[in-house]
């Protein structure tokens, strides 16, 4: 993750005044649906031998989406997989045509939505940078003149005449990111690119994003990463099932996203096990020692994790469990509500508040909290599994290991046998 974790809030006040800025992107009632054939026909024979019209399923990717973005805004679009965010980005980038509604825009748009698209592995970095520049609408001479700046940012000057197929994946991503940053596009569309390169390059990217926040450039960032949204964006929009479900303050939108996520999680099948939502997670958050909500904690600082669950139906003999998962996917620790505190049953409509104090031995990094609820006092009878009810960052100096322990080390030099 490229988020700069050493500071708690954004570097500049979020309330940069955009009312004085002109609208540069305007979407009005954008609607897009795909006809997905139930059995895809892709050969002539099938077309001829299928007598009845093939069955189509209408997929509404975007329904009546409207918004305005003003110049210089860093605008986040969040939503679950399949919520329509990528489709929206493709409509904005003229890759898809909208079925209805109109999009209007002012200023040059970078025509990519993903890093490194259009790179030709058989060509050298020099040729690719030129090709990319021309794709962006530059003249060839202009495109060539950017080469130095692009390579310098990507720290790849020595590899200018190496074919891209011989680049490592890290080098490729650096080059791609650099090409995008160094373009003179006034509007950038960025789809999930924050986690690129090694730590040093990530820091550089984070700096660039901070810079972009405060520049004239308009940026639309599509991401799942609520940390990034809260950190960089001036404003955010929540898409769900192709509809706008929230717009405004990034923190507010991020919380809405998380709430929406957990409400629908059990029935979506995408990242949950249960079929019926007997219990849902209302909210989950961290607090600091003084009881204030916190997005991040410092390494070693006591950690208070809180969650509020709501029973939709009666649940007999519930068990509640939580685990913290580190960026490598390792469950670093887990805890549950102690047996003696567990109720016999939770009735429909009842709310369950869980507050915990955790000794924080977590190594710096981003953690995701998972939540389990079982019933009938039986671990294998799962009522709810939510793989991501909260994420937070532990910041501080990184050392080896997934956790750290207070260690006393003694050190002594002993004289050897004199010869």
């Amino acid at each position: 993750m490229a988020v700069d974790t050493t500071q708690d809030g954004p570097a500049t006040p979020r309330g940069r005044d955009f009312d004085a800025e002109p609208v540069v992107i305007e979407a009005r009632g954008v609607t897009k649906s795909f006809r997905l054939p139930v059995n895809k026909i892709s050969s002539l024979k099938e077309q001829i031998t299928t007598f009845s019209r093939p069955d189509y399923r209408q997929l509404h990717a975007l329904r009546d989406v409207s918004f305005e973005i003003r110049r210089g805004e860093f605008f986040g679009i969040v939503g679950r997989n399949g919520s329509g965010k990528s489709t929206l980005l493709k409509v904005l980038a003229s890759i898809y045509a909208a079925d209805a509604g109109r999009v209007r825009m002012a200023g040059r748009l970078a025509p990519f939505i993903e890093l490194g698209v259009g790179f030709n592995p058989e060509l050298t970095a020099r040729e690719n940078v030129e090709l990319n520049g021309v794709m962006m609408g530059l003249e060839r001479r202009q495109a060539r003149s950017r080469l130095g700046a692009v390579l310098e940012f990507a720290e790849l000057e020595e590899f200018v005449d190496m074919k891209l197929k011989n680049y490592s994946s890290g080098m490729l991503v650096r080059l791609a990111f650099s090409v995008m940053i160094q373009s003179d596009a006034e509007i950038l569309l960025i789809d999930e690119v924050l986690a690129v390169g090694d730590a040093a390059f990530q820091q550089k990217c984070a700096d660039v994003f901070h810079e972009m926040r405060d520049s004239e450039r308009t940026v639309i960032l599509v991401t799942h990463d609520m940390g990034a949204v809260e950190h960089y964006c001036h404003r955010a929009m929540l898409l769900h099932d192709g509809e706008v479900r929230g717009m405004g303050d990034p923190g507010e939108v991020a919380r809405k996203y998380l709430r929406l996520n957990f409400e629908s999680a059990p029935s979506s099948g995408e990242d949950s096990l249960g079929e019926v939502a007997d219990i849902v997670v209302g909210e989950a958050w961290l607090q600091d020692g003084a009881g204030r909500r916190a997005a991040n904690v410092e390494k070693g600082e006591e950690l208070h994790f809180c969650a509020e669950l709501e029973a939709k139906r009666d649940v007999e003999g519930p068990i509640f469990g939580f685990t913290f998962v580190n960026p490598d996917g390792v469950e670093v620790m887990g805890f549950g509500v102690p047996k003696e505190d567990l109720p016999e049953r939770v009735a429909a409509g009842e709310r369950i508040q869980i507050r915990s104090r955790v000794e924080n031995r977590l190594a710096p990094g981003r953690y995701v909290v998972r939540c389990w609820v079982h019933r009938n006092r039986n671990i294998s009878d799962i009522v709810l599994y939510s793989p991501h009810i909260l994420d937070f960052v532990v910041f501080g100096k990184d050392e080896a290991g997934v956790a750290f322990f207070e260690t006393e080390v003694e050190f002594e030099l002993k004289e050897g046998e004199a010869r």
Partner: protein
Amino acid sequence: MSAEAQAPAQPVELREVRGPSATGGGSRRFFELLWLISATEFKKSFHGTAFGYIWSLVRPLMLFGVLLVVFTRIIRFEVPNYPVLLLFNLVVFGLFQEGTGAAVGSVLAQEGIVRKTQFPRLVIPLSSVMVAFFTLALNLIAVFAFILIYGITPMWTWLLLPVILLLIVVLTCAVSLLLSALNVRFRDVAIIWTVAATVLMYGTPIIYPLSIIEPSFLRDVLLANPLTLIFAQAHHWIIDPEAETALQAAGSWAAMLPATAIYVLTCVLGVWVFKREAPKIAERL
């Protein structure tokens, strides 16, 4: 806060975003992209091989050698300067064959670009034709050297070669557009085309002279092929002024009508189908 910052929003002019199209993104960008992509593709096709360009000449030369042996030692055609005519025909027909052959799968092959960038779709099949054209241009130098060595004296009608090439390039482009757009919908178009291209090669009098075909239904079919008339005219202009012109081969202006109609129809159809399909290509891939 300064007074400037509190001034009401100055609306800037917004332009409509219309979605993808065959040529979207301005004509200068279109041609720059076409040129750059064709040139790099062309360079790429020779890179990494020791003899580079030579290989593009070896293929038609091999075919030429085999056919020459077959048709001068085994079956004889009473055609003056048959070897040079054969070589010229094979090389020029190569443009059509290679251009369409590369274009048919080109849009599918460039899936990444089509689905993730705003890219004028037309550039993709056209660059395949351009690459074939670059190859042809180089090969023609060798062909004309061969023609001169063979003892054919230069004629003023050689200056009309661009007319022949233009007719073939336009047809190649039209067929390429049609095939590359259809291939997105029906993936077997590419497979069918490999067969169809071979049929077309024998359905065009390039290896054999049209004159050996008696007036018959078969001859009428061959005459309906626009390439037949183009190659007949090329024979007259480039190799042998004694040979029939396209008009003489057809017999009358009316007899040239089917081929002309098919030519025009193919061009219109190619452009129309591609234009219609272009906005939807990204979704269908």
